[in-house]
């Protein structure tokens, strides 16, 4: 648990410290406007929360950022550079993510999963591999060592050789984080990292995210667990029906009547003769 992976040092951030700058991102599926005009900034070393009721467009927004969807309108800038909507380029630029529904490579071991994440940071090609040139061997060794460090970092050092589908649920979530960290990101996107976890596991996940921030990474996290998000995040965006409803420090957002209304429903509805919509 102690071996701290090298922090992302060479993060060339714009002068005002903005790492991710999404402007007026819109995603239209036919007649459905899943994400509308969402603007968001994430600064280096910051933990930002993204909340909102089911179907608010949080995951769709993540997919727009990571190049899985090509936004209908708007622009995404990362570390001062425009971000092309191609997943591979996004990872190279320094943004990595986890998934709401765990998407590990189920028939690979935990270590292999993490090593897949190292792929984009190694340079050896098929030629090096076939002839077992020193570069290939050195890179393989480095990738293995780094991946083991990351497994230790998330607390899975004893499960390196376990097939990922045989890992308990909480371990799978942590393995996804280790795999994302293996790509040397500057910004980590976590899609509901505590979904389905018990309170003990949730606390551990919280601790892990703090330790990731201490490495110098920025974190953008989607969550439903309010206690989790307000104890963790420097700033929170609340997304409702595809649009940013409120943005600000955790406690401000938490007490905003509009946020409460979006989650629980407006108190006026009850007074309308029980005709709740």
């Amino acid at each position, binding site marked *: 648990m102690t071996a701290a992976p090298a922090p992302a040092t060479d993060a060339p951030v714009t002068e005002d410290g903005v790492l991710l700058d999404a402007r007026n991102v819109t995603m239209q599926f036919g007649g459905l406007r899943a994400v509308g005009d969402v603007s968001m900034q994430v600064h280096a070393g910051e933990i930002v929360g993204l909340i909102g009721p089911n179907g608010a467009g949080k995951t769709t927004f993540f997919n727009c950022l*990571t*190049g*899985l969807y090509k936004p209908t309108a708007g622009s995404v800038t990362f570390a001062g550079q425009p971000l092309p909507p191609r*997943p*591979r380029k*996004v*990872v*190279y630029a320094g943004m*990595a*993510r986890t*998934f709401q529904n765990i*998407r*590990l*490579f*189920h*028939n*690979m071991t935990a270590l*292999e999963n993490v*090593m*897949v*994440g*190292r*792929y*984009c940071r*190694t340079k*050896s*090609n*098929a030629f090096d*591999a*076939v002839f077992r040139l020193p570069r*290939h061997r050195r*890179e*393989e060794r480095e*990738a293995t060592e780094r991946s083991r460090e990351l497994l230790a970092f998330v607390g899975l050092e004893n499960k390196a050789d376990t*097939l990922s589908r045989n890992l308990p649920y909480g371990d799978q979530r942590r393995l996804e984080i280790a*795999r*994302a960290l293996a*790509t040397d990101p500057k910004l980590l996107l976590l899609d509901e990292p505590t979904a389905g976890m018990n309170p003990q596991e949730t606390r551990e996940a919280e601790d892990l995210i703090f330790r990731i921030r201490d490495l110098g990474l920025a974190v953008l996290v989607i969550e439903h667990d309010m206690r989790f998000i307000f104890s963790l995040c420097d700033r929170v965006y609340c997304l409702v029906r595809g649009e940013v409803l409120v943005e600000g420090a955790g406690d401000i957002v938490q007490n905003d009547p509009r946020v409460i209304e979006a989650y629980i429903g407006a108190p006026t509805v009850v007074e309308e003769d029980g005709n709740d919509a």
Partner: protein
Amino acid sequence: MDLFWQQLINGLSLGALYALIAVGYTVVYGIVQLINFAHGEIFMTGAFGAFATWVVMGSPSSMSWQVAVFGMLPVMILGGIIVSVTMALLMERLAYRPLRDAPRLAPLISAIGISVFLQEFVRLFFGDIPGMPDSKRAIPFPNIEGISGRSVSFGNVNVQISALFTLGALVVCTAFLWFYVNRTKTGRAMVATSQDPDTARLMGINVDRVIMAAFAVGAALAAIAGVAQGMRVGNIDFRMGFLAGLKAFTAAVLGGIGNINGAVVGGLVLGVVESMATTFIPGQFGSPAWKDVWAFVLLILVLVFRPQGLLGAKVVDRA
């Protein structure tokens, strides 16, 4: 009993040939879920590439077996690999990549089209290349001193050196593939892509490159098989890829398509079944003309009773 051993070794060498081709079907299928029906033609272009390389070298004919085996043969194999890999990559780029998001049937039909195209291309065009013989009929494959037509005897069992070459090539290629898939980053990327292409992309894997690598690996092995076939049979022709491709596809399905070990096992089993059937089934049903029937009967039996193939359930080794 000698007959049994004789047929076993014959079957294994035939099976090794099927296996070398079958790996190409299985690797590509494992990653893009495409049955590349043009793969038999890639095997054929590999054999023609090796032949053309021999012509370019000046059609050397008399030399010591050392020079032939350790000098000429490797160069011919390399030439064959270059041709077949180039063909496979062109095919991927021009015929399959544009259809990657199309319904599954579209690339399959494209594959059949490519297969016909390559056959006709070689038939009509190969002879027009300066120095190359007319390719409308079978072309005699160059004599490799020390391999072609030679055999060794173990008791009453006679083993062609070309059969030993095929088996040896299979062993070397399988070892190489194992290393490639399990010990290199491209191999890991292949396994990852075969399990979940979208996630692989989101982890920074260049999926286009991985798919090209899969086609290239399959084509290289097919070219080696093409040279082996040329030495076994003594000639090559533009039709040689059709039945060999079909048999290798059968082998891949037999072993469990998508599974590399399965392709190797499936190839060997198919080869042995074919050669045993022509020997131990009595009457006209055991005549050599029936060997293809028994091969496809085996395929049907496997599809009915074990559709995932002999090793299909063991998806761990999928790549």
